[in-house]
C-alpha cells in the first residue's frame, strides 16, 4: 500500500524542494537510529507526507542535522528531525511489518518473511508505545482479509477499511485536531486502496483474483475509465477539503502540491503505460 503519495517535483519551488528532501532524509535518519539499518530500507515518501502535514499543523521545531549519505557521497546533506519524524518512523515500521507479513503469506516470499522477523522486536516496542494505532492496523488486516475473501463489491465498504486504519494513524494525538486529521487520513486511505486496485485490475482479472473494480468494469466497460477517475477524484476532493479546514500555513505549498497534483503521479504513469501498449499493438 506504499508508493502513492508522491510530490510533483517539477512544480516545487527551490526552497520547498529543499525542505521536502530534508524531511525525507530526516525520516531515513530516524529509522536508522530507532530501528537500525534494516528499517532504513523501509523508507518511503508516503510517510514523508505525514511528517510534513503534522509539522505544518503543530508548527514543530526542527532539529537540523548535517550528515553524509552513502548514496550521495561527497555531498553533505541536511536532515530535518522533529517529534513527528519519530512518530512517522514508528508508524512506518508498523505498516511495513504487516506489508511484509502479508506478502509472505500471499506469495511465499522468503526474503520478506526474514525481513518481517527482523522487525518483530521493533514492532513489539512500538505496540506498547502506540497501542491505539497498532490495534487499528491489526484489526484492519483481519477485516480486509475477510472482505476480500467475500469478494466485496461495495467500494466504500472495502476501501473504507484502509481509510479507517490510516485515519487512526493520522490522528496523532488525542486533541482538537484528531477528528479532522482522522478525516483527512480516512479519504487518503480510501484513495490509496482504490488506486492500488486500479493499478492491479488487469493483472487480477487475468489471474482471476479479487479486485473491487471487477464488477464495475464488467457492467460498464466503456465508461469505466471515466467512472473510476470520478471516484478517485471524489476521494481526493474530500481529503483536500479536510486539509483546507486545518489552520496550516507552514509548508502549505508542499502539501497542496501533493494533494492536488503529486498523488496523481502513479495514475498518470499507469495511463502513459496503457497508451504505449495500445500504440505498440
Amino acid at each position, binding site marked *: 500500500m506504499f508508493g502513492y503519495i508522491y510530490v510533483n517535483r517539477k512544480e516545487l519551488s527551490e526552497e520547498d524542494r529543499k525542505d521536502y528532501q530534508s524531511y525525507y532524509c530526516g525520516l531515513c535518519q530516524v529509522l536508522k537510529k530507532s530501528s537500525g539499518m534494516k528499517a532504513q530500507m523501509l523508507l518511503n*515518501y508516503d510517510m514523508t507526507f505525514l511528517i510534513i502535514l503534522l509539522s505544518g499543523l503543530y508548527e514543530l521545531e526542527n532539529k537540523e542535522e548535517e550528515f553524509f549519505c552513502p548514496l550521495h557521497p561527497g555531498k553533505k546533506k541536511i536532515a530535518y528531525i522533529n517529534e513527528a519524524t519519530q512518530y512517522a518512523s514508528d508508524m512506518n515500521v508498523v505498516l511495513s511489518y504487516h506489508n511484509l507479513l502479508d506478502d509472505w503469506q500471499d506469495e511465499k516470499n522468503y526474503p520478506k518473511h526474514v525481513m518481517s522477523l527482523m522487525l518483530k522486536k521493533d514492532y513489539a516496542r512500538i505496540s506498547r508505545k502506540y497501542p491505539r494505532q497498532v490495534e487499528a492496523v491489526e484489526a484492519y488486516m483481519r477485516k480486509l482479509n475477510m472482505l476480500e475473501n467475500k469478494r466485496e463489491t461495495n467500494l466504500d*465498504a472495502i476501501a473504507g477499511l484502509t481509510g479507517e486504519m490510516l485515519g487512526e494513524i493520522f490522528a496523532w494525538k488525542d486533541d482538537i485536531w484528531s477528528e479532522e486529521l482522522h478525516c483527512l487520513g480516512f479519504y487518503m486511505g480510501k484513495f490509496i486502496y482504490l488506486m492500488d486496485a486500479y493499478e492491479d485490475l488487469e493483472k487480477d482479472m487475468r489471474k482471476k483474483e479479487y479486485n473491487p473494480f471487477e464488477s464495475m468494469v464488467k457492467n460498464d466497460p466503456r465508461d469505466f475509465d471515466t467512472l473510476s477517475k470520478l471516484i478517485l477524484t*471524489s476521494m481526493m476532493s474530500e481529503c483536500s477539503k479536510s486539509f483546507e479546514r486545518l489552520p*496550516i500555513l507552514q509548508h502549505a505549498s508542499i502539501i497542496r502540491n501533493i494533494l492536488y497534483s503529486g498523488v496523481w503521479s502513479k495514475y*498518470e*504513469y499507469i495511463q502513459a503505460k496503457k497508451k504505449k501498449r495500445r500504440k505498440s499493438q
Partner: protein
Amino acid sequence: MRNPYEVLGVSPGATDEEIKKAYRKLSRQYHPDANVNSPHPEIAEEKFKEVQQAYTQIMKEKQQGYAGGYQNGSAQSGPYGAYGSYGGFGGFGDFTGQSEQRSQQNDPVNMQAAMNYIRNGYYKEALHALNDIPMGQRSARWYFFSAVANQGAGNNVVAQEHAQQAVAMEPSNMEYRQFLQNLQFGGTWYQNMGSSYQRPVSGLSRMCAIWCGFMMFLNCCCFRPF
C-alpha cells in the same frame, strides 16, 4: 456566542489565509502554556476555547459556501460525524422544513427515525434504520436520505449513486437535484485547485534508490529454486 469573525478580528470577506493567520496569532497568545503565570489563567483559557470554536465554525461555513457535502457542526455529531457531511444549504434541518408537513405523516417510522439520526449527526444509525426498509418500499425520498446519511458516514461512492437515483426517480424535486449538484461540485472544485500544476510524471523516476533497489532485491528472490 459572539460573531466568530469578531472573535478572530477579521472581516467576513477575509481569505482563508488571513483567517488562518489570525487564528494562529490568537491561539498562541491565549494558549494555556503561555498563560501559566498570568494573574487570570482561566480567562485566557476561556478565550482560547472561544478562538478555537470561532475558527472551526468559520472554516465550515466557508466551505459550505463554495461546495457542498461538508461537515455539519461536530458539536453533537456521532462517531462518524467527521467524514464531512451534508451541510450545503443550511443543513438537513432546514431542508426538511417544507417537505416535512406534506410527507411526514406518510413516512414509515423508520424513515422518521433516520431523519432524526441524520439531523443529530448519527449517520451510521440512520443507515441502519434506512436499511430496515424493504427494497420494494424505497422511494426517491428514501434514496435521498440514504445519500445524505452515506455521505455523512464517509461512503461517498454510494452517496453519489443514491443521489442520482433519487433525482432519476423524482426529476422535479429541486432539493434532490441540489444535493446531487453539491456532491458533484466537490470534484470540480478539486480539479480547479489542481489545474495550475503540470501533470506529475517525473515523480516516479526519482524514487529513492534504497527503497527501489531493496524491493527489486526482494522481488528477484521470489524465484525460488523449486
